[in-house]
């Protein structure tokens, strides 16, 4: 299959391209950007006039809910949502049921995802058995089965000695570890940012200290072990400052933020809106503004959807009892564009955070339109209205604080390995 994407404006941050070009695809790979290779005859030409041609988006955190939570979502429903959102590669945390702590589970997931042929799935292995924070998993076996990193998802290793050993062991083999920094004791039973809003609503708070104490500890452990650590979902300005400081001293860590935390803060909880029950919690507006700036200047490396489809029953309960998380695969693009527009950033910067920067963190050869690379492409209509409604969402999860909003910008075509896997009519 040979595809000619004609008349589009190519934005390929990995190769510093931001100009009108045609893109040529053959045998699942990019063969040229600009002039057609000699003798190229397309089976299909996609007219991308007025559209942006970008690498397929990479989402650093998307829960697909298989195995174990098929009543919340399935691989098929969520990978369909992914490609509708322009996402061609995604990393999934290990908090399935059972958790991804055995090679067989990972192989099965990879196999099922491959058969669906929609987006590439990069599972994270559990750092500890059942994510309990006690016993190390067989990281070597899990890596061979296809795990690209190891994580505890939203849970913590409370025992610092176990954490130290897990990081030492991972460092021995050069595995990267992704941790959501939150001190389990300080977070306690908390469900919202510990501040004025939680105090008014009578919700148990998660203090910023829970994040800063965890980051401080983890940074010390990184120094001691030399592990490649990625901080997943930074939520506070103070946490960010610690990471900045460490990087200035030459400690190589990376971090990301969720797209929800770029736009929302604790005030949005309003009258106990359970769609705003997220992990980490939405923090104050000054935290949000700091995260927005840090993503712009690259101190935060990437933004992800932290896609978490939750069934209605688990959200239609009092705030503190609600399951945390929001659906997001289909909102990553429009919410990133909205952030970039509000921050007056070039489109190329915005797209870098969800393509090339994300690929670098994930350590995968994607997020580029370089000839020879897999033809994962997202063709974007940056001006198309993108209303968020229960009907418009393909994800089985309809849970998002952005429900009812009119966003702008969507994927018109999504190509994975040179095949059109989504086309918006």
């Amino acid at each position: 299959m040979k595809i000619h994407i004609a008349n589009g404006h190519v934005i390929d941050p990995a190769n510093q391209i931001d100009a009108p070009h045609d893109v040529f695809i053959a045998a699942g790979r990019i063969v040229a950007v600009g002039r057609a290779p000699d003798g190229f005859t397309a089976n299909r030409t996609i007219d991308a006039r007025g559209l942006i041609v970008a690498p397929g988006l990479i989402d650093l955190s998307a829960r697909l809910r298989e195995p174990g939570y098929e009543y919340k979502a399935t691989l098929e429903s969520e990978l369909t949502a992914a490609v509708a959102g322009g996402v061609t590669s995604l990393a999934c945390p290990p908090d399935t049921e059972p958790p991804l702590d055995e090679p067989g589970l990972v192989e099965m997931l990879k196999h099922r995802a491959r058969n669906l042929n929609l987006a590439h799935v990069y599972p994270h292995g559990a750092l500890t058995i059942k994510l309990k924070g006690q016993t190390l998993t067989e990281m070597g076996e899990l890596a061979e089965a296809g795990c690209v990193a190891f994580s505890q998802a939203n849970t913590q290793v409370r025992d610092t000695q176990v954490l130290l050993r897990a990081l030492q062991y991972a460092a021995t083999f050069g595995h990267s570890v992704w941790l959501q920094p939150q001190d389990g004791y300080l977070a306690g039973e908390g469900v919202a940012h510990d501040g004025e809003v939680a105090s008014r609503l009578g919700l148990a708070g998660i203090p910023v200290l829970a994040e800063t104490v965890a980051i401080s500890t983890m940074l010390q452990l990184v120094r001691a072990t030399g592990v490649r650590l990625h901080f997943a979902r930074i939520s506070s300005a103070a946490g960010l400052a610690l990471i900045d400081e460490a990087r200035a001293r030459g400690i190589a860590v990376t971090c990301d933020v969720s797209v929800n935390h770029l736009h929302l803060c604790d005030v949005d909880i309003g009258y106990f809106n359970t769609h705003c029950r997220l992990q980490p919690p939405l923090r104050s507006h000054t935290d949000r503004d700091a995260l927005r700036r840090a993503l712009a200047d690259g101190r935060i490396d990437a933004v992800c959807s932290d896609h978490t489809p939750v069934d209605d029953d688990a959200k239609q309960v009092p705030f503190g009892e609600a399951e945390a998380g929001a659906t997001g695969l289909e909102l990553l693009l429009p919410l990133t564009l909205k952030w970039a527009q509000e921050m007056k950033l070039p489109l190329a910067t915005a797209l870098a955070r969800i393509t090339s920067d994300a690929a670098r963190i994930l350590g995968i050869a994607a997020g580029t339109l370089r000839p020879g690379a897999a033809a994962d492409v997202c063709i974007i209509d940056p001006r198309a209205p993108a209303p968020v409604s229960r009907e418009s969402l393909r994800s089985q999860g309809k849970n998002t604080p952005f429900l009812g909003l009119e966003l702008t910008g969507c994927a018109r075509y999504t190509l994975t390995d040179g095949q059109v896997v989504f086309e918006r009519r």
Partner: protein
Amino acid sequence: MARNPQLNSHGGLRHLLSIEGLPREIVVAILDTAEPFTEVAEREVKKLPLLRGKSVFNLFFENSTRTRTTFEIAAKRLSADVINLNVSTSSTAKGETLLDTVDNLVAMQADMFVVRHASSGAPYLIAQHLEATRRPNVHVVNAGDGRHAHPTQGLLDMYTIRHYKRDFTQLTVAVVGDILHSRVARSQIHALTTLGVPEVRAIAPKTLLPSEVERLGVRVFHDMREGLRGVDVVMMLRLQNERMTGSLLPSPQEYFKFFGLTEDKLALAKPDAIVLHPGPMNRGVEIDSAVADGGQAVILPQVTFGIAVRMAVMSMLAHG
């Protein structure tokens, strides 16, 4: 942000969920409406026909004897049919969701729910659900949700203060104790600031104060003697048993020493200061018996006024 769910489109009271966000006029109207109801209790026939034919469901997901009883008496004095449901021991134990329970009771023609729940915001969830399912004539009264609010308690406290002190705008009021976990404290603070009390003090150790509590409009004191100096009203809070020892407080004895209301500490307040307590009291923990039974305590009148205030709330909800 969504419209305040406790007001109808004309700004009138549709549900009573929290004192925060209630206009001052509505708070005053509730207190005024309660005035004549205090006399009903002294009549030989203690009944008014205001809620005749209406069904009031006491929906208690958390145990409570006192609050449930006072709501029951209030509803019965208004001639309503009262149905008590202790849900903690029935349907939810069988796996029924909160909203399923509500739908079932609505199908039984409930007119009003009096809701007590351990989770903050539960009555909002019910109110929002009634709105979504187009049940504008079913009303919700929050009888205490988690740490969030206990608005009828706050209102009866205001009624009591007004009864003894008349003018809110000249008062200094101290709220003392476990403010962190207290829905009563939050409702009191909102009610006091709404009614124009110029100085509301919060007296507690740092472990029992919510984050950024000053933003609620209170002045914080950690020294009880300093905090009580010159106050007109002392509002004591109940300390739950499970908080008396552990990482919040070392022991009930030490708590009593520093934050228990004794006669000598009370002597620092104005000579005519009154003492309130929402009950049930832990004598010798947050309050000394000499104070609880002394001449400045108005703890029993609070209970009596509580019935009148709850009658006022229910009749106002039922009649728009």
